């Protein structure tokens, strides 16, 4: 790896991308996952495509109900057996996960592709010693004998920063704090040195002070083992300096996808901007109200026609409510978004007739102008940006 001298958590996206070798480790194409319920079919993931290169970090960001958790489970194939319909392809390391038999999946799960769960309080078996919960996959996938597995488990516990791991291995989850449990979970997920780890809101259930520790630990281990990580979170702040690339999801679809710096410096989709604005800042005056996105994500059984974010979007026009914007690129090919009136320098290209024009002044004044590369957009007449090949 070329960037080993980089401080943890601040890996430059462009460098990593160029350092990553040829083919992506994971290719997801047009993935759909829906659940049959008594009310109707819930389209939790509705046509999602992306790629992850070996050793890199992809952030998947969205509100609760945006389909990000289902997306991560769908990629793994780790879905309930009944009442679930999944289509599309997931190619992991050249193999099609969607066509794998149960036995093939089991040989991949835990060994090459593993998962860190959201809630360390519920994701560890309460009546099994933590050592056992680690050795289980070691013995299954790496054919270790009991002794060797026990020894490796202790080493793993040590590597995730559990003090006196020999004793702790004999403990039960209830004897550990939340942060310690999440460390145990990471030890379990990394036991067999997987090539891709799905971390589904790995720090949501933890104290803020512990969150950073866990994320740093994960970044450390990722660098040492050259793992790819998909970091699923509702908090853009979590992925801001940890992900190489970020996908923003809304109502089961990708609404914006870009390398991290580009996403922050040249936000195109009003939803992404709204998510950014909802992060509280130290520079905000004391007593400033938190910015929230009004309303709720749409019903995934009957999603609205047009842009799914339109009902909550302050810039929404008639066109937004009528037809759905496709994912497209403007300028650089690695930045895609779905918006008829993408933001330019944090300002909407929607016709100014809208009553929300005042809000625009609140938008980011600190946007880095150098990041905006496209000069061919003509926002003045309110016409949509010319659609480009994506």
């Amino acid at each position: 790896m070329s960037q080993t001298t980089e401080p943890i958590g601040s890996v430059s996206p462009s460098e990593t991308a160029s350092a990553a070798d040829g083919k992506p480790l994971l290719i997801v194409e047009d993935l759909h996952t829906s659940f049959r319920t008594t009310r109707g079919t819930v389209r939790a993931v509705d046509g999602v495509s992306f790629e992850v290169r070996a050793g890199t970090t992809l952030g998947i960001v969205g509100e609760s109900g945006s389909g990000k958790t289902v997306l991560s489970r769908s990629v793994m194939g780790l879905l309930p057996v009944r009442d679930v319909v999944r289509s599309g392809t997931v190619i992991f390391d050249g193999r099609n996960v969607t066509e794998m038999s149960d036995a093939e999946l089991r040989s991949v799960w835990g060994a090459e592709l593993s998962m860190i769960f959201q809630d360390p309080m519920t994701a560890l078996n309460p009546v099994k010693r933590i050592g056992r919960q680690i050795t289980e996959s070691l013995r299954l996938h790496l054919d270790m004998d009991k002794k060797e597995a026990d020894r490796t488990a202790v080493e793993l516990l040590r590597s995730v920063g559990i003090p006196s791991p020999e004793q702790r291995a004999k403990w039960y989850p209830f004897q550990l704090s939340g942060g310690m449990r999440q460390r145990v979970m990471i030890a379990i997920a990394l036991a067999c040195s997987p090539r891709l780890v799905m971390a589904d809101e790995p720090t949501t259930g933890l104290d803020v002070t512990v969150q950073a520790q866990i994320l740093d630990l994960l970044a450390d281990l990722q660098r040492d083992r050259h793992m790819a990580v998909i970091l699923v979170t509702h908090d853009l702040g979590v992925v801001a300096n940890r992900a190489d690339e970020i996908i923003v999801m809304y109502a089961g679809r990708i609404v914006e996808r870009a390398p991290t710096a580009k996403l922050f410096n040249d936000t195109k989709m009003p939803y992404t901007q709204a998510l950014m604005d909802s992060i509280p800042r130290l520079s905000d005056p004391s007593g400033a109200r938190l910015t929230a996105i009004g309303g709720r994500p749409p019903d995934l059984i009957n999603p609205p026609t047009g842009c799914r974010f339109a009902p909550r979007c302050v810039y929404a026009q008639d066109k937004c409510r009528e037809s759905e914007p496709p994912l497209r690129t403007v300028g650089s090919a690695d930045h895609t978004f779905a918006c008829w009136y993408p933001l330019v320098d944090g300002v909407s290209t929607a016709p100014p007739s809208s009553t929300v024009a005042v809000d625009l002044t609140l938008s980011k004044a600190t946007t880095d102008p150098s990041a905006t590369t496209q000069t061919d957009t003509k926002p003045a007449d309110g016409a949509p940006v010319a659609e480009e090949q994506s």
Partner: protein
Amino acid sequence: MGKYLARRAAQLLVVSFIISVLAFLLVHLLPGDPSVTILGTNDTEANRAILFKQLGLDKPLWQQYITWVTAIFHGDLGQSYLNHLPVTQILTTGFPVDLELIVISQIIAFSVAIPLALVVARKPNQPLDTASSTAAFGLLALPPFVVAPIMVAVFAVGLGWFPATGWVPLTQSFTENLHHMILPSLAITAGSIAVYYRLFRSDLIATLQEDFITMARSKGLTNRRIMWRHAFRPSTFSLLAAAGVNIGALIAGTFVVEFLFALPGIGYSLVQAVYQRDYLVVQGISLVVAIAFVLIQFIVDFIFTVVDPRVVRE
């Protein structure tokens, strides 16, 4: 762990004391007395007084209680006013019969309920599940006094596979004894099967929805392994608690079955003694049954500490 068990043992002692007081008071608070059974309704008051003096029933209640309890510590539970059999003898002959009945019925109940629940829980709401749940409902609705005559009619009278009544001591012939015990055991096992099956099934289904099961799947474990190594143990809590109460209730609750199959258990002796105001027999049996009940809860609590490590901490 040791501390926890010691605390439970202390509780057991206190409960046993309370039970002894209650068992004693209960019979004495019942209207009527043993003189009616012994002397008949037409005897004189004088004779009655003599009898009371003989039996020690003329003394104040608290004195009678102390006499009774002191004797217990010497292994003497007194004797029946009517046939003068020592209460300990009634217990030692009757209790093993009930114990055997309970053990056989529970073995049957667990070996039907648990495998069935394990199979069904993996695919709930399938035809097998619907059928089993309906059957379990039916079994629950059928008390032993309905099940027993039907079974006697079919398996004893009709098919002649098993004897309709009677009992052979275990010491005399093991197979003969078992042969006589099958039908009575089946008669009381029905309710247990239904309760155990329904509890274990729903707990298993709930456990299988837990995050840690998805976590186990994500490790690449087989369904079989997940079922046995991850889902089984955390799903047994309600089953254990229910089994404790159920087995306890069966100790003195097998009266109907004992009566129908003419088994010499203590349930039958107890009911008879209550009718005849045979105080010492009622007291003795109640005390032993109650202590057995508490002991079973104690054992269940102990099993809990093994099954669920979290119990010890609280």
